[in-house]
């Protein structure tokens, strides 16, 4: 992480006083106990107490806070609901943690224009809840959707299990209001499509809180499909399951969701949820077909035929919505289910070309032996997004380090087969030092120049995404040289 700025730490009380001019006194947290809930996000292996916590509730307050921080030279870390799995909201010891939870109102539900305007702290699922009475929903559904915030979804470009057919956050976003580190408020997009000019909306999405603080979000809502049918298919090998996935797509079928689980994941999920998974299978696929009843029925038949043709050992079609939800129950609870069979687990998030799945799973099994740590695999098979869950015990000395090294090797393998480091969780601090596996120094320098266009002083969420930090002035003309010192790592527990 960036070196701690002792001068800023020394002026903590002064900065707190400045923030109390902007916010009510109880929205500026200084004491250790009140700051404690913010010291970590969903990547709990990393912890850091922030210098201060500020909890604004208006755009004007955010703007004033950023200006104040800029004048103090203080860094700022934005935070939504704090569910990031990559440490995107990990605080800085010399930085203000900007919590956006008080931005919790839905501002406008516009059915004729099929969109919702919400403040960034509104939970993902709350948007669907607000419109489902009229038959609409918001499509991206990360598994943390009950609590994760829509602003955080934008910052991380969150996905979910329906991305292949319905897209990620970026494909479901119409407009944003955001505040730059300078305090300037920008509005991009709106209720219309494809605003002219550079696609600032698109580049802010997935920028992991490094470019601007999001203060308002306009998303499109979709009409719920008339029906959904799910198939639960068992296979004697992961290869057969992988072939089934490839054949489904080659046959022109785009399922609403298509999830693969390997044997350890099946057993963990079945023990936890009793979803009725075949315990003799080496892999299962859950394939959901949605649309008009006639479409879902016929596609379910086609997929069942494809599955049998590649040697599926069992094929069950949901006969009711209850049964369909039971099929999903095990998958949706896969993470907590794995959490019951090991003291800790570490969730990875690479994306690979689908055809490489057997090869990558074989490699993961080898690594599992090599590192002496168990692993369960769940896979968004439709879009190639793999979530290996590495099992470890943080109380055993060295196991966390081994789990991290194991995870890094998995991600290297993902890149080596033509994939990427992260499909939906973000780079954050977690995968920051792996970025050179995928990008050259020139690639990363170009990305950092973009960062400089938004935040010339590098004050917004520094230490995330980029393995080395460069001052914007030096990015201007000088080429980046190899072998720059890495910043010392974050204190970990």
């Amino acid at each position, binding site marked *: 992480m960036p070196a701690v700025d002792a001068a800023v730490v020394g002026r903590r009380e002064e900065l707190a006083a400045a923030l109390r001019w902007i916010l009510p006194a109880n929205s500026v947290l200084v004491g250790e106990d009140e700051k404690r809930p913010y010291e970590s996000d969903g990547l709990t292996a990393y912890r850091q107490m922030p210098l201060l916590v500020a909890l604004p509730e208006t755009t004007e307050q955010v703007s004033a806070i950023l200006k104040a921080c800029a004048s103090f030279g203080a860094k700022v870390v934005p935070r939504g609901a704090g569910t990031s799995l990559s440490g995107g909201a990990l605080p800085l010891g010399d930085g203000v943690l900007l919590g956006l939870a008080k931005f919790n109102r839905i501002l406008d539900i516009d059915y004729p224009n099929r969109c919702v305007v919400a403040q960034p702290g509104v939970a993902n699922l709350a948007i669907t809840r607000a419109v489902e009475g009229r038959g609409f929903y918001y499509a991206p559904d990360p598994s943390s959707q009950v609590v994760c915030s829509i602003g955080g979804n934008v910052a991380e470009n969150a996905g979910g299990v329906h991305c292949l057919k319905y897209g990620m956050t970026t494909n479901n976003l119409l407009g944003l209001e955001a505040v730059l580190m300078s305090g300037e408020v*920008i509005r991009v997009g709106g209720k*219309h499509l494809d605003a002219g000019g550079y696609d600032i909306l698109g580049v802010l999405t997935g920028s992991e809180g490094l470019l601007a603080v999001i203060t308002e979000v306009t998303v499109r809502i979709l009409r719920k499909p008339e029906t959904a049918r799910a198939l639960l298919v068992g296979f004697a090998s992961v290869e057969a399951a992988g072939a089934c996935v490839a054949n489904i797509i080659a046959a022109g079928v785009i399922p609403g969701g298509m999830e693969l689980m390997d044997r350890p994941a099946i057993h963990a999920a079945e023990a936890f949820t009793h979803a009725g998974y075949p315990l003799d299978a080496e892999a299962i696929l859950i394939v959901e077909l949605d649309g008009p009843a006639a479409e879902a029925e016929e596609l379910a038949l086609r997929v069942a035929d494809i599955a049998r043709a590649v040697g599926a050992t069992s094929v069950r079609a949901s006969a009711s919505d209850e049964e369909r939800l039971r099929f999903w129950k095990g998958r949706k609870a896969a993470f907590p289910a794995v959490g019951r069979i090991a003291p800790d687990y570490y969730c990875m998030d690479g994306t690979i070309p689908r055809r490489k799945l057997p090869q990558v799973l074989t490699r993961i099994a080898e690594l599992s032996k090599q590192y002496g740590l168990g692993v369960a695999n769940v896979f968004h098979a439709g879009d190639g997004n793999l979530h290996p869950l590495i099992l470890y015990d943080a109380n055993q000395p060295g196991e966390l380090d081994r789990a991290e090294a194991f995870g890094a090797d998995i991600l290297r393998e993902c890149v080596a087969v033509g994939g990427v480091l992260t499909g*939906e969780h973000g780079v954050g601090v977690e995968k920051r030092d792996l970025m050179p596996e995928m990008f050259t120094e020139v690639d990363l320098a170009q990305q950092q120049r973009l960062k400089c266009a938004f935040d010339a002083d590098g004050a917004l969420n520094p230490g995330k995404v980029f393995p080395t930090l460069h001052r914007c002035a030096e990015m201007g003309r000088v080429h980046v040289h190899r072998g720059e010192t890495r910043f010392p790592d974050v204190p970990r527990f």
Partner: protein
Amino acid sequence: MLRPTTTLELQEAITGAWADATTLEVRAGGSKAALGRDAPAAQALDLTALSGITDYDPAELVLTARAATPLAEVRAVLAERNQHLAFEPPDYAALLASERAPTLGGTLAANLSGPRRLSAGAARDHFLGLSAVSGRGELFKSGGRVVKNVTGYDLSKLLAGSFGTLAVLGEVTVKVMPAPEQACTVLVHDQTPAQAVSWMTRVTATPIDASGLAYLPVHACGRSEVQAVRAGGTAVTALRLEGIGASVAARLQALREGWLTDAGHGYETTVLERDESRVLWTEITDCQLLPRQGVVWKVSVPPARGADVVTRLTALLDCDVVFDWAGGLVWVCIRGDAARETVVRGTIRDCGGHATLIRASATERRRCPVFEPLSPPVAALSRRIKDAFDPGGILNPGRMFA
């Protein structure tokens, strides 16, 4: 003219131009040379030789090609495997009176999408990864060759619609999708613009899942090759259904049972089968139903406001219109040579939306802002973004903003 044949030569050409401050007009097919501000550059950078599909794996749903690969070539290769570019890229040859063929890179650089934008997303939503050369002469990549990826900033989005002003695309990867097995179009005859937009808004709130919703006033219908559209002598609202046969049939049935009436009285309708349906939507995609003369604006508004905007525009201007995207996109063709931007932009301003000048004389495209003027902080940010990619201002200078 610079005519690189490899990525390395492209890099050398741009490095050289940066070194001696030569401005470059970046062009691939040249079909959209008349799109954007008229701002000549010192030298043409012709990418025609950087063409060809480099990788295509139907089961992975991705295709990689050099930027100047003709769209027709991409379409043909995809069609062999029953796949397509779901965002329905247009060919503005008729609109812009160009003989040249559009390319994949040009389509992405202009972020151009057709009627299926409504259901399938824009060009930018299908743009997964790229390699490009910045105005500093540096070759960089972004994104990847997989459909789900959040590693690093999403520069594909930023370069889509940047009209070659930030970097020159070398190779691009796009998401491809299975082509629909079946398609048909329901024509609803004789609605007023207000009725049509109201009806389209109602239909989009049902599970009918239309992949195209357009409204063609009488003048536009008269230019169609499709007999049922041209011969009726009335306005036509067109709704396209695509998917597997059973799905198209079921939705057509549901439409007939529930949604082809308004306030109790039924509309007169015609159904176009697959081939005629394709002809009509190509005409809409490529803007063939607009007059061949006159200034053309592309107006994007919240869809339910489409009719309102048109009512106000037609009261002030002598113009023809075509509605797409369920009312969210209005093509406005004004008779004469004057862009009339004060009227056009003034009218849409309080509806929320933006207007882009698509067809006008070079003089008008110098005088009048082609793209919607940006708010001061967004304009300043956009300039800094430009500087971050092209500090010498050599790539298509002034093509987007003066």
